[in-house]
């Protein structure tokens, strides 16, 4: 008599649009210049980080300011795999995810003793400690950093094929490969989060975010949920970090553990786009990219403008740009609501 549905027309349309976009995105290197590919790589990797941070903060209530720890450790683990173990960089990327996962265990152990703002600062401190420790690692360049060796970059898995396919130089082929991997990663991460939110775990996550005490009282294991989300987010962030630094092929502790690049910008993207929605970070990363391109020549004015915009959005549109759009139009491109359908129930939300 009654049934549950999460399906909406907009959701189906989104699924089709995403499929088309992904296929077009895969084919793009045949037409686009190297500059466009590099820009898209930047957008896709920032979007991946933003979706992950949104899962943590927007759905899990875990406002971490220390995600750069996992970007950095993921990137360094990838470099270690290449330089110390002689692995192909592509195969060393999963090593980045694994290293971040391992680092996340002690991080969560300590940081979960803290709440709210203290948790945020705690994660940042742990990231700084990790940066200082990694800077002691002399074989990977210590404080000044290092580059991927020439024989490794010239021999990345699949680049021969790409060179033959698009008749491009080696460096451009590496960019195309990185771009493709970024596309796969962003689809996997966003799709994974979407799936998670529509699963039982998604309900539990929302319940814990809204009211921990009440969540426990209906049988939700709040502690385990927080652990699960934190570990998943760390591993995905580590993979992204490894991929980002495979593309640059150069690493230093300051770059890999940069709080502005890997956390502040990411928070900016999520906040202006709309926290707690999958659509928000997508919109946010586009706005961020446009601002970055437009203001790139203005030095510190660039950062100040970003800050002012973020403050304005927080004050006047706390649910971000997507929040404004969806409140006006009722549109949800990635519907996660479970609707009860049956007699006697009004149209609902």
């Amino acid at each position: 008599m009654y049934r549950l549905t999460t399906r909406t027309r907009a959701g189906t349309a989104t699924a089709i649009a995403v499929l088309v976009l992904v296929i077009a995105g895969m084919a793009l290197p045949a037409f686009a210049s190297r500059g466009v590919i590099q820009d898209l790589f930047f957008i896709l990797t920032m979007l991946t980080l933003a979706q992950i941070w949104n899962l943590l903060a927007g759905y899990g209530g875990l406002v971490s300011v220390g995600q750069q720890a996992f970007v950095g450790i993921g990137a360094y683990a990838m470099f270690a795999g290449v330089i110390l173990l002689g692995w192909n960089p592509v195969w060393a990327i999963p090593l980045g995810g694994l290293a971040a996962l391992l680092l996340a265990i002690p991080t969560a152990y300590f940081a979960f003793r803290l709440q709210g703002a203290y948790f945020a600062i705690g994660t940042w401190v742990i990231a700084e400690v990790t940066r200082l420790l990694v800077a002691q690692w002399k074989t990977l360049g210590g404080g000044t950093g290092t580059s991927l060796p020439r024989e490794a970059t010239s021999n990345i898995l699949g680049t021969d094929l790409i060179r033959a396919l698009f008749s491009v130089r080696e460096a451009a082929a590496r960019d195309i490969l990185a771009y493709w991997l970024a596309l796969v990663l962003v689809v996997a991460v966003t799709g994974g989060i979407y799936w998670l939110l529509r699963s039982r775990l998604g309900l539990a996550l929302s319940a814990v975010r809204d009211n921990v005490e009440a969540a426990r009282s209906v049988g939700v294991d709040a502690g385990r949920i927080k652990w699960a989300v934190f570990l998943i987010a760390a591993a995905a962030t580590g993979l992204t970090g490894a991929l980002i630094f495979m593309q640059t092929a150069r690493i230093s502790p300051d770059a890999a553990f940069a709080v502005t690049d890997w956390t502040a910008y990411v928070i900016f993207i999520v906040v202006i786009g709309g926290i707690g929605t999958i659509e928000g970070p997508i919109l946010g990363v586009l706005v961020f990219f446009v601002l970055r391109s437009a203001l790139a020549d203005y030095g510190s004015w660039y950062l100040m403008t970003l800050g002012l915009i973020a403050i304005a959005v927080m004050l006047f549109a706390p649910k971000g740009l997507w929040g404004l759009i969806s409140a006006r139009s009722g549109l949800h491109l990635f519907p996660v609501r479970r609707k009860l359908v049956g007699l006697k129930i009004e149209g609902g939300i």
Partner: protein
Amino acid sequence: MILRLENVSKSFGALKVTDAVTVSVPRGEALGIIGPNGAGKSTLFNLITGNVLANEGRIEFLGRDVTRAPAMERVRMGVGRSFQIPQPFEGLTVFENLLTAAAFGRGGREADMVDACARILEETELLKKANVVAGSLSLLDRKRLELARALATGPELLLLDEIAGGLTEGECKALVETIRAIHARGTTIIWIEHVLHALTSVVERLLVLDFGRVIGIGAPDEIMASKEVREIYLGLEV
């Protein structure tokens, strides 16, 4: 006995909020708890649900020692509760609130819980608002949701904390009818309430708490006739 408390005590610092409470609740009973503000009624609930752990004593549920068991484990065993101040999952819809409680409180797939949730929504008069976000509900509907969500966990023992408080006479009456129907189906109920006529119209026994101690337990008429209880309730509605 579905629930047994033996010499259960709880202190917050120097303050003893639960003082050697011993009580047994037979299966199917409705037990009311009264007492002045600060008597330790809600703490007693928290001790039974596991939201607070006892310093001393022993709590048995369905013959099992649950004194140290965490709240979520007790929910799965069949202890459901409502909160004095409604605590809905505000970002979720009414239906999703129940679905969460059903999927985690009983353990199972969401799809298998849909009919049970719909039935509870119907019984608590929330069916029309199933797809409304809980954060936008009125007080009456929030109270109903507290009850509905507790029911969705499939409780054998239902703990109600001042569910009638703050409601109008008419609203209260409807809610009492719902509770009576739930009780009639065999669910054991322990109910804290200041609205005495609502309470005494359902419960078979009353327990009086003062300064964390049980100062009386028995049939509502006897309890309300006792001098000690009258003194404690002086100034309150008797």
